[in-house]
C-alpha cells in the first residue's frame, strides 16, 4: 500500500488526532452536555494554559533537553506581575514584567546548560526550587488577589464570541508551528536535538540557541501564568505545581520524542486537548477527581505505548 508522504511523515500526529476524535465521539454519546458550544469553549479555555506552557516544553524536548522549572516559573512570574498590577502599573507594563521574569529564569536555565554544561534535568530541577522560593519570598507566602477589569479581560473577554485565552493559545500555536517548520531557529532546534556534535561542526551556534530554547520555555510559562492569574483573579506563590508534568505529558502524547530531534507543536496541541477533554468529560460524567488521575495517567501510558507498538510494527 502506498502512503502519501505527508501522511507518512505525520503518521504519529494522525494517530493522536484519531484518539482525540474517538474520545470526543465517545463523550458525545455518553453525555449530552459534552457537545455544546459553551462546553467546548470551556474546554478550550481550560486547556489553553497547559497548552501554551507545553509549546515551550515541546521546543525544549525537541532540542533533546527537559525543563522542570516551568511550574515554578508560573508562580514566580505571576506574583511579580500581580505585585506590579497592585502597585498601579499599567496592565501592559505589568504583563511585560511578568513575561520578562519568566524569560529571565529561562535564560538562566539556558546559560547553566549551554555554558555551565549542566545536564538540563539538574539545572531546571534547581531552578524549580529557586523560582518557587523567590515567588514565596516576594509575597511572603501570601497570594496577591483582585485586579482591574482591563487585566481580567485577558481571561474573561471575548472577541467575536471566542474567549481571549483561546485566541492567545491559537496565536501561540500558529507562531510556534511556523517558527519550528519554517525558520532558522526551528531548523537549529531539530538539528541540535538530532545531533549536537554534527550541528556544532556545521557551524550552528549551539550554545546560543540552547539558551534561546530555554528562554522561550520560560517566556511561555510566564504567558501561561498571565492567563492563570487573570482567570483566578489571584496570583499565588504555590500556583503551577505539577504544571511541568502536564506539559511534558501533552508533549509526549503529541508524539515528540524524549530523545530529541523529532516532534511537532501540532501534536502537542492535540495532546493538550486530549488531556483537557478527558478531564472535562470525566467531570461531566461525575467521575471522582481521585479516579480522574488514574485515568489520565493510564491514557498517557497508553498513548506512548501505542506509539512504540506502532513503531515496532513498522520495522
Amino acid at each position, binding site marked *: 500500500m502506498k*502512503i502519501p*508522504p505527508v501522511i*507518512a*511523515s505525520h503518521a504519529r500526529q494522525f494517530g493522536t488526532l484519531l484518539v482525540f476524535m474517538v474520545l470526543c465521539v465517545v463523550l458525545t454519546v455518553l453525555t449530552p452536555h459534552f457537545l455544546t458550544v459553551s462546553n467546548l469553549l470551556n474546554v478550550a479555555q481550560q486547556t489553553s494554559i497547559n497548552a501554551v506552557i507545553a509549546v515551550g516544553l515541546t521546543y525544549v524536548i525537541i532540542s533533546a533537553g527537559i525543563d522542570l522549572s516551568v511550574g515554578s516559573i508560573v508562580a514566580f512570574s505571576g506574583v511579580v506581575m500581580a505585585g506590579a498590577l497592585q502597585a498601579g502599573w499599567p496592565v501592559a507594563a505589568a504583563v511585560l514584567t511578568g513575561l520578562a521574569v519568566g524569560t529571565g529564569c529561562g535564560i538562566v536555565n539556558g546559560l547553566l546548560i549551554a555554558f555551565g554544561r549542566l545536564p538540563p534535568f539538574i539545572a531546571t530541577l534547581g531552578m524549580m526550587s529557586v523560582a518557587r522560593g523567590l515567588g514565596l519570598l516576594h509575597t511572603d507566602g501570601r497570594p496577591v488577589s483582585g485586579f482591574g477589569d482591563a487585566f481580567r479581560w485577558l481571561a474573561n473577554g471575548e472577541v467575536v464570541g471566542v474567549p481571549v485565552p483561546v485566541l492567545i493559545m491559537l496565536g501561540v500555536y500558529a507562531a510556534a508551528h511556523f517558527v519550528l517548520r*519554517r*525558520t*532558522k*531557529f*526551528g*531548523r*537549529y532546534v*531539530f*538539528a541540535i536535538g*538530532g*545531533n549536537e*556534535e*554534527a*550541528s*556544532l*561542526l*556545521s*557551524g*550552528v*551556534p549551539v550554545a546560543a540557541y540552547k539558551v534561546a530554547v530555554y528562554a522561550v520555555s520560560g517566556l511561555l510559562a510566564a504567558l501561561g501564568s498571565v492567563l492563570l492569574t487573570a482567570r483566578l483573579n489571584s496570583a499565588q506563590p504555590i500556583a503551577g505545581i505539577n504544571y511541568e508534568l502536564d506539559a511534558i505529558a501533552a508533549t509526549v502524547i503529541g508524539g515528540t520524542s524524549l530523545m530529541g*530531534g*523529532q516532534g511537532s507543536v501540532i501534536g502537542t496541541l492535540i495532546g493538550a486537548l486530549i488531556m483537557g477533554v478527558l478531564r472535562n468529560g470525566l467531570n461531566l460524567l461525575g467521575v471522582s477527581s481521585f479516579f480522574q488521575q488514574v485515568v489520565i495517567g493510564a491514557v498517557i501510558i497508553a498513548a506512548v505505548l501505542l506509539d512504540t507498538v506502532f513503531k515496532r510494527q513498522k*520495522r
Partner: protein
Amino acid sequence: MATECPLLRMTGVSKRYPGVVALDGVDLEVRKGEVHILLGENGAGKSTLMKILAGAVRRDEGTIEIDGVPLDEPGPRAAQAAGVSIIYQEFNLIPHLTVAENIFLGRERGLGFPGVIDQGWIFREAERRLTDLGVAIDARAVVDDLGVAEQQMVEVAKALSIDAKVLVMDEPTSALTDKEIVRLFSVIRGLQARGVAVIYISHRMEELFQIGDRVTVLRDGRLIGTRTIRDTTMDGLIQMMVGRDLTEKFPKRAVTPGEELLKVEGLARRGVLHDISFTLRRGEVVGLAGLMGSGRTELARAIFGADPIDAGSIRIRGREVKIDSPRAAIHAGVGFLTEDRKRQGLVLALSVTENVCLANVNRMATAGCMHLAQEESAAQRYITDLRIKTPGAAQRVMNLSGGNQQKVVLAKWLCRETEILLFDEPTRGIDVGSKVEIYQLINRLAAEGKAILMISSELPEILGMSDRILVMNRGRIAGEFQAAAATQESLLQCALASSHP
C-alpha cells in the same frame, strides 16, 4: 577444512522497504568450516541479508535452513538458538561491566537463590573460553578499559559462548592495526578448524584473499554469483561488484596550483600538536599521512576550531584569521568532512535537504525565515550532481547507505561554497565503486579551484590522490614529499621514525 555439505542455506530471500527493493531473491550457501566472504558495494544488501539471518529484520520471502532444519520462527532469539551469532561493526558491549559479565550477559548461571549470580562460574568459564580462543585478556577487566582490538575479541568470545555454528563478522578489521588483524585471522582459522562457518564482510579487498575460502557478491539487492577465492582475481571481483571495469582507480589530472589559500604557521596544542607549519594552494590536493594517533585528526580539528590551540597562526587568503570555533572556521571558508559521519557529520533524523543546507541556513533564510523551495532545489542539484542515491530529497539521511551519506556531507560543504576542504578518511567504510566516485569528486573540486587536505590511512590512496604529501609523526610534521617522488616505503619510514634515536 571445508566440506561440501552446506551448513547454512538461504534461498530466495527478498526484502522490500517503501520505495526500495533491498533484497531480491538472494541465495546463499555456507559450508561447515569455511570462511565465506560477503562482498558488495554499500547498499548492495549485505547488511540486510545478515540482519535477516540474525532475526533482526523480517524477510518478505525466502527460506533459511541451518543443518537442514528450517528456521521459520522470527526474532533474534530463535536465530541464536539455531546457532547464528553476529558481531556488528558497532560493538554491543556494556562498557562498565567486566569482560566475563559481558560474555555471559543474559545467560548468567544462578547460585540457587533466585536472582543471585554465580560470579565465580562466570569468571572461570569466561577465562576458559578466552584461553580457548588463544587471547590473553583478563576476564575481570572492565570492557571500557580495553582497546578496540581486545573488545573485538570479547565480542568473538561472546558470540561463540552460545555455541555458534554460523558466525557473522561485519567489517571486523575496520578499526584494527595490522598486527591485531593478524591475531584476528589466526583466531578465525582456529574457529574454522572447529567447524564454525564464518561469514565475513569487509571492504578491504586484500584481506579477502588472505582469509576467505569462497566469496558471494551482491549488487543492488541481487545475487551476482558465488566463486571460490582461489579462482578469482581482485579485478574480477571488483567488476562483479560494480558491474563495470575499473581500470583507473585513481583518475589522473593535471594541476597548476594557484594562490595560497591556507597557511598554517607554528600551530601547537599542548601534548598533541607541535610546531606545525604548512600551506595549501588553490587546486591542490595535499595528503596527510601518519599512523593512528600521530595527530592527523587533531590537526584538522585544530584548524577547524573544534579544539583550542595554544600557539601559532592561521592565514587564509593571506589574511590572518582567529579561528576559535567551527563557526569561525566555516565563516573563513573552511569545511571539515569528519571521519565519523554518523556521529559528527550528519543529523540522521533530518532529511537530505536539511542536512545539505545545515551549514548554509543563513543564506537560505531572510529575516530568519527559511526559503524551503530554494533549499529543496539546492538539494536536488547536489543529488543529481553528486549522484546521491535516495528516493527523494525529503528522505531521512539515516536510511541512506554509507557512500551516499558521505556524499551528503560533501554536499553540505559544497552548498556552503567552502574553498578549503579538510577530508578525514573520506573513503573509510565505503565500497570500491563509491570510493572511485569520491576520488573523482575530490579531483573535480581541486580542478574547480578548491584546496584540499586529505587525511588517509591507506597509503595507496594518499599516493594516488595527492599532489603533495605531509607525514605526521607524534604531533609533528615529520616530512613533506612531492607525490611523484614518494613511495609507500618512504612514507612509512617517515611515519614510523622515532624522534629520539
